[in-house]
C-alpha cells in the first residue's frame, strides 16, 4: 500500500519533469508524410536534373539551365512548406488528444533550438549557391538539418536525436561522395524520416 504511493510519487515526478521541459506531442505520422513528400520531390528533381544523362555519369558535366534551377527551388520549397504544415497540423491534433497546450514553454524552446542551426544552414546554403558551389548544397542541407535535430532533441522525444545523428552521417558521406547529393538527400530526408517517423508512430501514437 505504502509502496504503491511511493511508486506513484516517483512516476509523478518523472512525468512532470518531462512534461515541463520537453514537447512530447511531436507526431510520428507527420515524419512519415514528410519522408514521402521528400521522396516525391527527389523523384521530380531527378527527372529534371538527369533528363539526358544519369546520376552515375560524371557530375561535373551536369548542366543546370536557369529554368530547371527555378524548378528545383520550387520543388524544394514545396516539400519544405508541405512538411512544415503537416508537422504543425499533426502535432496540434496530438496535443489536443493529450489535453496539452501546443504553444507553451516546451514547444517554444523546441522551436527556437531547432531553428537556430537550421536558419544558419539556410543562410550558408544561400551564400554557397551565390558563389556557385552547387555540389555542396545537398550535403549542407543534410548536415545542418541533422545538427538542428540533434540540438532540438533535448527538448522533445529522444528519438529525434538518432534522426539527427543519421542525417549528419549521411551529410558527411555525401560530402565525400560529391555528385551523388540527390541520392543521399532522398535517403536522408525521405528514408530516415519514414524510418524514424514509423518508429515514433508505433512507440507513442498507436495506443
Amino acid at each position, binding site marked *: 500500500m*505504502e509502496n504503491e504511493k*511511493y511508486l506513484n510519487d516517483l512516476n*509523478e*515526478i*518523472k512525468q*512532470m*519533469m518531462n*512534461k*515541463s*521541459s520537453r514537447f512530447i506531442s511531436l507526431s510520428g505520422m507527420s515524419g512519415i508524410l514528410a519522408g514521402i513528400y521528400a521522396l516525391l520531390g527527389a523523384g521530380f528533381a531527378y527527372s529534371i536534373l538527369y533528363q539526358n544523362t544519369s546520376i552515375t555519369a560524371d557530375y561535373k558535366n551536369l548542366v543546370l539551365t536557369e529554368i530547371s534551377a527555378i524548378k528545383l527551388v520550387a520543388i524544394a520549397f514545396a516539400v519544405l512548406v508541405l512538411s512544415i504544415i503537416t508537422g504543425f497540423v499533426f502535432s496540434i491534433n496530438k496535443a489536443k488528444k493529450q489535453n496539452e497546450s501546443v504553444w507553451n514553454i516546451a514547444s517554444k524552446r523546441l522551436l527556437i533550438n531547432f531553428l537556430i542551426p537550421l536558419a544558419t544552414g539556410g543562410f550558408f546554403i544561400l551564400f554557397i549557391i551565390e558563389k556557385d558551389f552547387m555540389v555542396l548544397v545537398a550535403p549542407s542541407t543534410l548536415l545542418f538539418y541533422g545538427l538542428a535535430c540533434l540540438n532540438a532533441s533535448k527538448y522533445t522525444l529522444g528519438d529525434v536525436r538518432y534522426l539527427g545523428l543519421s542525417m549528419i552521417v549521411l551529410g558527411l558521406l555525401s560530402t565525400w561522395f560529391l555528385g551523388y547529393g540527390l541520392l543521399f538527400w532522398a535517403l536522408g530526408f525521405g528514408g530516415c524520416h519514414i524510418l524514424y517517423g514509423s518508429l515514433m508512430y508505433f512507440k507513442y501514437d498507436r495506443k
Partner: protein
Amino acid sequence: MLNIIQNINKAFDHRIRLGIMSILMVNENADFNMLKELLGVTDGNLASHTKALELEKYILIEKQFIGKKPNTKYSATKAGRNAFIAHIDALEKLIKKS
C-alpha cells in the same frame, strides 16, 4: 529502514508540492501561469503550496513587472534541490527494500 524514512521529506508529501519541485528541478525558473497550467490547480491552491515551499526555503519567489502586468517567478534554491534529490533517493530505496 528508520534512516530512510527520515529522509522522506514531509514538505514534499503532497502531489502539488511534488509537482512544483519536479518542474523547478528541470527548469531554471517558471512563472505562475506555467505552474498553474502544468499542474492543473486553482490560483489559491497553488499560492498556498508555493508559500509552504518558500517557508522551507526550498524555492525562491521573485515578484516583478513585465510592462504593467505583475509576474511572479519561481525557482528552486540549492537547499531545495538537495532536499528533493534526497527525497527521490529515499523513495527509490524504499521501493527497492520491499
